[in-house]
């Protein structure tokens, strides 16, 4: 990676809070025009990673460069050139939509006229022009999220950090946001996205980094991760109410990976027909669903299908 297109580079990056290790020796690279997803269960260290890159918390050890600069020495310069969309919209509910943007532009040292021009451009970009003079209280959840993302773009950033950008959005709003984020990427903006929504990651990201307990579990292109960690197909069988749960040993030969989750049996298999025939000999299912494996299957396989006590 040359210095010119380096968006983020970190090596053995670690953050501890007392005895708890939030991020443990993280290695990460992101280039201009590239989109990287950091996924993982709650508490995996995704948000802490974003906060370190955004110069909002100090790494405990390791090296970190953002846009070729060290946050410890050049935090203000870095903040000038990045945009951050946090999990919470953090909009001022007492101000209008336009004022939220204009004032944010002023934090970057823009003149009043420049802040106004950029704000109106971003309202148009995010299809919020009709709401310019409305109060933030009057916005729907999707509109508020779009405004929050527009605000992060006010300084035309070279790197945008998005912490769960589409959580809670309806499908239309989500599609529209994805389109806007793809436009940004084509313009050369680097995107670092955390998400729990795997279709979003598959749609938007060139690479995925899966974290658990502060560490990288695996990384790669979404399709490669699926190919590497999942069989071709996934069979999900829902058991009838009251039927006994099958013994794990009895299911072990049904596919490459078999798990019982509540009243469902999940089978990762290269050949769904063969697995279904074998399942029919063992169970009387209430419903059967067969589909191609996805990033979500890889994610669940790597991080565990069940909600564990410590991650709850």
């Amino acid at each position: 990676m040359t210095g010119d297109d380096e968006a983020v580079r970190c090596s053995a990056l670690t953050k501890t809070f007392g005895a708890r290790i939030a991020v443990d020796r993280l290695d990460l690279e992101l280039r201009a025009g590239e989109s990287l997803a950091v996924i993982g269960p709650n508490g995996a260290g995704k948000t802490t990673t974003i906060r370190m890159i955004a110069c909002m918390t100090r790494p405990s050890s390791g090296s970190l460069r953002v846009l070729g600069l060290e946050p410890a020495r050049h935090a203000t310069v870095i903040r000038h050139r990045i945009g951050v969309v946090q999990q919470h919209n953090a909009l001022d509910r007492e101000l209008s939509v336009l004022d939220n943007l204009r004032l944010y532009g002023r934090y970057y040292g823009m003149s009043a006229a420049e802040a106004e021009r950029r704000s109106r451009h971003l309202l148009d970009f995010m299809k919020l022009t009709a709401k310019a003079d409305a109060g933030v209280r009057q916005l729907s959840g999707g509109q508020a999220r779009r405004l929050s993302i527009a605000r992060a773009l006010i300084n035309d950033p070279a790197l945008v950090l998005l912490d769960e950008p589409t959580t809670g959005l309806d499908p239309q709003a989500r599609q529209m946001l994805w389109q806007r984020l793809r436009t940004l990427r084509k313009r050369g903006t680097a995107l670092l996205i955390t998400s729990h929504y795997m279709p979003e990651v598959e749609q938007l990201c060139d690479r995925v980094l899966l974290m658990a307990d502060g560490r990288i579990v695996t990384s790669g292109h979404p399709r490669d991760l699926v190919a590497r960690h999942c069989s071709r197909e996934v069979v999900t069988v829902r058991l009838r109410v009251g039927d006994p749960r099958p013994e794990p040993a009895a299911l072990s030969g049904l596919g490459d990976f078999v798990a019982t989750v509540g009243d469902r049996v999940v089978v990762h298999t290269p050949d769904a027909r063969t697995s279904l025939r074998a399942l029919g000999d063992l169970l009387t299912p209430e419903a059967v669903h067969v589909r191609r494996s996805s990033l979500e299957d890889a994610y669940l396989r790597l991080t565990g299908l069940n909600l564990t006590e410590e991650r709850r």
Partner: protein
Amino acid sequence: MRLAWRVVEFQVYHYRRTWQSSVVGTVVFPVLALLVLGIGVDRLIGASDALGGIRYLDFVAPAVLAGTAMQVAATEATMPIFVGLRLTRTAEAMLATPIGPSGLVDGHLLWICLRTATASLVLFGLSAWLGVFTISTLVPVLGICLLVALAHAGPLLAYSVRQDTAYGLVAISRLFVLPMMLGAGTLAPVDLMPPFLAYVARATPLWHGAQLCRAAAGATMPAWTIAVHVGYLLAWAGIGYAFARRTFNRRLGL
């Protein structure tokens, strides 16, 4: 400092929508206190020997000005910081911009100075109309009020940023701000208090601020005493500022 003014710009925009909630505590209440204490109590007790023969109004009005400066600082350096960082998170959003933690501290202190100046102007005008101050003392009195506000604002900002719940802010208001407002030589001379409490009162920045305001109102005071009062407030303001910036940077940034 240029970016700190952008924080003030945000505060002005925000204040235009929310001024009603704070103007009662920082302007209306002090004006009422000045009228009730300065006129009502003054008529009740008249010129007292304990006050050195001056009117009670001349004793209490300067302290109300200093106390209001402290009250403005306590109001603006506590709950708005807590709300902006923990509830609405608008202050946290600023941290991701060039404003950063240091700009947030500087901006809030500037805003506190502006709010103190406006509240002090109202009280100074009323006090001058009542004959406590002459117009020529406006600049020094404003300067003293700003110094009192800054002496309290820095430590309170540092305290507020460390709070995860609002209970700590309620405690500081009830255990420190209110007792100081009543007992730091504001409503009665500290010499009338039990010796231990008199020492405590003299250690508060508010007492030093009130004494300086009294000097501006014409109370006789040696120059070295004035220098000690100013130095004490400057020390609180300077150490408080450094402490606030350090705490903000450690808690919220790099």
